[in-house]
Every structure is written in C-alpha cells, then in structure tokens.
C-alpha cells in the first residue's frame, strides 16, 4: 500500500525538475525535453488521482496529454530544425533577434 501522497510528491519533483530544466538549460532541445518532463509529472498525478477516485477519466486525460505532447513534439522539433537551418545554432541565448 502506497499513500497517494507519495505519487504526488514524485509528480511534484518531476514537474519541478522540468521547470528547472526549462529555466537553466541553454540547448533548445533540452529545454523542449524539460517540457516533456513536466507533462510526464502531471500525467503521473492524473493516474494517481484516477486510482484515488476510482474513475478512469484520469487515465483518459493521460492519453490526451500524450497526444498533445506528441503533436507538440512534432511541431516543436520541426521548428527547431527550421531555426537551426537559419541560425546554425541550438543555443537559445543566441536566438535573440527579437530583443530590443
């Protein structure tokens, strides 16, 4: 028997790691992976809550999150490729045409 809070703490840690990675990483691909990490953390809490409430909708939501994440990945990676083509770099600090 595992208390649900354990799952939630794990979920929180994963999410926090995602946020940190999003903030400190410079490689645009890694940043993108951090987002995936956050999504995964959220997914875990969905599944845990589904188990708690005894309703499968939580698991269904995980599917939707996955689909959205997959779509996001496809588009995001395409954007990364396009950025790399024009800027020849993956470092987000150098993708800074939009500054004042």
């Amino acid at each position: 028997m595992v208390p649900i809070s354990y799952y939630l703490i794990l979920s929180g840690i994963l999410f926090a790691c995602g946020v940190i990675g999003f903030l400190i990483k410079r490689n645009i691909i890694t940043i993108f992976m951090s987002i995936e990490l956050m999504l995964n953390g959220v997914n875990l809490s969905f599944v845990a809550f589904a188990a708690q409430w005894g309703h499968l909708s939580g698991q269904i939501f995980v599917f939707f999150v996955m689909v959205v994440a997959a779509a996001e990945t496809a588009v995001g990676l395409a954007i990364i490729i396009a950025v790399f083509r024009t800027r020849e770099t993956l470092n987000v600090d150098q993708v800074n045409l939009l500054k004042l």
Partner: protein
Amino acid sequence: MLHLVLFLVFAAICVAGAVNLLVQKHPISSALSLVVVMASLAVEYLLLGAEFVAAVQVIVYAGAVMVLFVFVIMLLNAGEEETTKGSRVALVLGVPGALAGGLLVAWVLIRHSGDTALSLGALPGYPKTIGWLLFHEFLLPFEVTSILVLIAILGAVFLAAKPETPPAPTGRKG
C-alpha cells in the same frame, strides 16, 4: 510491501533520471535520461494498474517521441551545451524557487487529497474499458484531438520542409 518497495525503487530511478537530465551537458544524454524517466514512470503506472497507459507511455513517449528527439539531435549533430556564467540569477533564485514551488504544490495536493493509500493495481485500466470511455464519454475530445494531430502533422511537414530554392535565372531579362 512489495508495492512500496517497487514504488520507491522506480521513483528513485525516476528522480535520478530527471536530475540527470538537468546535470548532463550533452543533449543526447539528457534524452536518454528522459527515456529512463519515462520507462520508470511506465512501471509506476503499472503499479497503479494502468497497464494500457503504461504500454502507451512506452510506445508513444519512449518509442516515438524520444526517438524523434534523438533523431533530431543526431540530425543536427548537436554538441555539448555551452555553459556561461550569465545566468547566475536564475540559478540562485530559480532552482530553489522552482523546487520549493513544486514541493509546495505537492504538499497542497496532499493536504487536499486525503490520505488514501493505493493498493497494487488500484484501478485496472483495461484497454477495453478505456476504449469504451474514449469512444463514448470522450468522443468529442477524441475527435478534436485527431484534428489537432492532423494540424500538427501538416505544420511539421511545412516547417521542416526544405525551403524551395528559387528557380535558376534563365538569363532572359524582361
């Protein structure tokens, strides 16, 4: 007991993977750490009984999404991350802040979730039941998602397509 042990082991792997993602300098290592996180999360799902979700997690996330990441890293031949000292502030303020925030959120969720203990395979998510729900209760979101995926495919194809090279000048002016 078995449940708790398994949970702790894979949670440890999970957190280790997540931290490794942050620590590693090379994106491919980060990607592999993420694969580890996802695989161990799949096990956590299995422990909760969500076997279909676990399988899909492996197939979609580990098998497709992360392969795409690896593929792109390889394609772009991404090197090691450059580290600069420019972002001290983010490191000093951001990391503890984010960590604290995450823990706070978890704490609140715990407070409001009661102290339900989950047994092994608490809520079996059989493919049949999930499919039934998906095609009855969640039919509209499902279809909307399909449109989203279609749009994403088109967008990805358009974005990643090589820019058309302008036709070579034929030499005739005017």
